[in-house]
C-alpha cells in the first residue's frame, strides 16, 4: 500500500504521491461519514489505534522475533494510568500531555520488568510466560477494588477526561472554521498524528543500528552475539520500545472511550494484534498497517450480515454478532492456509516462502521461526 513511497520513479512523482495521500488522509473521516455514517468514523479511529499497537508489537515479534502474547498488558497499563490521573476516580485531572508520557514510561518500565527474567526463554516458552504476565495484569485490574479501591474492579473506571488541546475539548461536537467536528473527528486527527509519528519511528528504527541488531538476533542469536551485539540489552530494548507504543495507545484509548474496564484487555486482544501482524506480513511495516486496518474493519463490516440476511431470506436467521466472529475465525484459517507469509510480506520473507524446495529448506533452517 505504501510501497510506492519507497521506490518513487522521480522526485516530482514522489511529491505528488505524498500530497495526494495527505489530502486523502485529511478528508477521509468526512468521506467515510458521508458514505457510511458516523459510526464508521469511530471504526476509523480504532483502526489507527490498532495500527499503533500493531507497529509496537511488530518491534517485539516482527523485528526481534520474540513471541509476545501478553502485549495487551502494556496497553492496559497505559489506559489505567490515564484513567487514574485524569478522571474523578481519584479526583485528579492532569492534562493529557502530562499523562501520556507517564503512561508510556510506566509501560516501558514494565516491558523491561517482563523482559529481564525471560531473556533466557525461547519461542513457545517465552510465549506462555508473556501470556501469563498479561493475564496477571488483567486479573489484578479486575480485583484491585478491595480493600483499597484502585481499579474499581470489573465495573471499570468511568468519566475519563477527554483530550483537550488549546481549550478545545475533544469530547464534544463543535464547530471550527465553519466545519462541524464530532468527537470521533477530533480523535481521528489526533490518532493520525500519533500514527504517523509511530510510522516514522518504526521506519527509522528498522534501518538503524538497533533495528539491524534486532533482525540479527531474530535470525540467529548466537551469531549476533558473536558479532558483538549485546543481545541482553538489545532484547530488553525491544520489549521496552514495544511496550512504550502499547502504553501510548492505551492512554489514547482511555481518553477516546472515556471508560475502561478489564474486559477490554483480555488475551484475545493480544491475539488479535498478533493476527494483524502475521496476516499483514510480519516485520514489514506496510503489511502490518494493512493487517491492522483490515482486521479492525472486517469484523465491523460483518455486522451488515444481519441486513444481508434480511434482504436475502426476509428475516434475520442468525444473530450477526454471533456469526461475524465465526466468519472471522474462518477467514484467519483460510488466510493462513493459502497465504501464510501474509498479505504484503517483506521481500526476504517472500523469498523464504517461495524458494525452491531445497533452497527453502536451507533458508528455513536458519530462520528463528521455522521448524528445525
Amino acid at each position, binding site marked *: 500500500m505504501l510501497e510506492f513511497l519507497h521506490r518513487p520513479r522521480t522526485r516530482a512523482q514522489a511529491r505528488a504521491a505524498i500530497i495526494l495521500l495527505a489530502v486523502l488522509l485529511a478528508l477521509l473521516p468526512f468521506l467515510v461519514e458521508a458514505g457510511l455514517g458516523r459510526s464508521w468514523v469511530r471504526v476509523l479511529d480504532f483502526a489507527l489505534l490498532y495500527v499503533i499497537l500493531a507497529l509496537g508489537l511488530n518491534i517485539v515479534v516482527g523485528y526481534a522475533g520474540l513471541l509476545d502474547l501478553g502485549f495487551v498488558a502494556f496497553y492496559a497499563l497505559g489506559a489505567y494510568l490515564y484513567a487514574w490521573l485524569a478522571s474523578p476516580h481519584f479526583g485528579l485531572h492532569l492534562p493529557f500531555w502530562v499523562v501520556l508520557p507517564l503512561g508510556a514510561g510506566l509501560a516501558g518500565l514494565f516491558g523491561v520488568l517482563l523482559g529481564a527474567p525471560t531473556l533466557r526463554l525461547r519461542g513457545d516458552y517465552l510465549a*506462555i510466560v508473556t*501470556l*501469563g504476565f498479561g493475564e496477571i495484569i488483567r*486479573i489484578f485490574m479486575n480485583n484491585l477494588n478491595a480493600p483499597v479501591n484502585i481499579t474499581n474492579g470489573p465495573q471499570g473506571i468511568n468519566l475519563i477526561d477527554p483530550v483537550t488541546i488549546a481549550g478545545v475539548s475533544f469530547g464534544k461536537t463543535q464547530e471550527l472554521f465553519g466545519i462541524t467536528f464530532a468527537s470521533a473527528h477530533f480523535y481521528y486527527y489526533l490518532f493520525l498524528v500519533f500514527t504517523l509519528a509511530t510510522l516514522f519511528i518504526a521506519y527509522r528504527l528498522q534501518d538503524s543500528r538497533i533495528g539491524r541488531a534486532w533482525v540479527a538476533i531474530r535470525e540467529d542469536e548466537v551469531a549476533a552475539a558473536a558479532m558483538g551485539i549485546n543481545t541482553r540489552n538489545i532484547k530488553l530494548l525491544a520489549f521496552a520500545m514495544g511496550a512504550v507504543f502499547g502504553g501510548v495507545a492505551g492512554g489514547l484509548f482511555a481518553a477516546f472511550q472515556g471508560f475502561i474496564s478489564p474486559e477490554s484487555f483480555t488475551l484475545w486482544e493480544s491475539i488479535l494484534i498478533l*493476527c494483524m501482524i502475521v496476516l499483514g506480513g510480519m516485520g514489514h511495516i506496510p503489511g502490518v498497517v494493512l493487517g491492522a486496518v483490515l482486521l479492525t474493519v472486517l469484523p465491523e463490516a460483518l455486522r451488515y450480515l444481519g441486513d444481508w440476511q434480511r434482504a436475502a431470506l426476509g428475516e434475520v436467521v442468525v444473530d450477526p454478532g454471533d456469526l461475524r466472529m465465526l466468519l472471522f475465525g474462518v477467514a484467519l484459517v483460510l488466510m*493462513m492456509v493459502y497465504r*501464510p507469509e501474509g498479505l504484503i510480506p517483506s521481500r526476504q520473507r517472500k523469498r523464504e516462502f517461495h524458494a525452491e524446495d531445497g533452497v527453502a529448506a536451507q533458508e*528455513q533452517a536458519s530462520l528463528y*521461526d*521455522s521448524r528445525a
Partner: protein
Amino acid sequence: MDIFVQQLINGLVLGSIYALVALGYTMVYGILELINFAHGEVTMMGAMVALTVIGLLLGLNPELSGLLVVLAGVLVAIPACMLLAFTIERVAYRPLRRAPRLAPLITAIGVSIVLQNAAMLIWGRQYVSFPQILPQQTYEVLGAHITSLQIFIVLLCMAVMAGLWLLVQKTRLGRAMRATAQSKEVAMLMGVDIDRVISATFVIGAALAAIAGVMVSAYYGLAHYYMGFMLGLKAFSAAVLGGIGNIAGAMLGGLLLGVIEALGAGYIGDLTGGFLGSHYQDVFAFFVLILVLVFRPSGLLGERVATRA
C-alpha cells in the same frame, strides 16, 4: 491442617483434570512443535455433546441410572471429539506443516474462535447445567471432606493416564509416535506412516479431552461455550510446567498446577493479611509458572535443550 488437606484434595481433583487436557497439548507439541490452541475448545465440545446426550436420555426416561446416562454421554462425546480433532488437523494444520511456526498458531486461534462461536450458536450463551444424577456421598478424611464424585474423577483420570502410558510405551502405534517425536525424517525412513501417526496423536488427545470435559462439567455442575478457554490455558501451562513434549511431565505438571492453585487460593488471604482474596487463584497459577520457567526454562521434566549452534 483441615484446610490444608481439604485444599490438597480439591487440588488433586482439579489437577488430574488439568493433566488429562495437558496430555493432549503435550503429545501434539512433542510431535509437531505446535501449540494446538483449539484443544481447550475440543474439551468444551466434549462437555457440550455429553450434556446434550445426557439431557436427551433423561428426557426419554428420567428413571435411568445416573451413572449409565453419564457413561453414555461420555461414549458419544469421545468419538465426536475424535472426529472433530481429526478434521481440525486435516483442514487447519496439515496444509501448514512446512510453514513457519506462527502460521499454524494463527490457524489454531482461528479454529478456536470458530468452535467457540459455533458452540454459542448451537447451545446459546447461557450456562448449561449438569443434572445432579451422579450418586453423591461425602466421606471424611483427616478432617476434610471428599465426595464420591471427586474420588471417581481422580480414579478415572489415573486409569486413563495409565492406559495412555501403556499405549505409548508398549504398542506399535506408541513406538511410532515416539519415533516420530524424535525425528520425523528418520521415522519415515523406518517405514512409519507419519500422517497416520499425527492424526492418531490428535485423535487420542481429543479422546482424553472429551473425558476431561465431561469430568470438569460434572465437577462444577455446569458447562459453557467459553469454558474451554481458561481450561485450555491452564492445561497448556501445566504441560509447559512439566516440560512440554514430555508425557510424564504433563501428568506431573497438571497435578502440581492443580495443587498449587488450590493451596494458593486457600492461603493467599492469610498470607497477605486479607489484602488479596481467593479470586487471585489464577494469578497464583501463572506466577508459579513464570517462576519455574525462569529458573528451569525447559520445565520440570523437560530435557535441557542446548542452544542451537
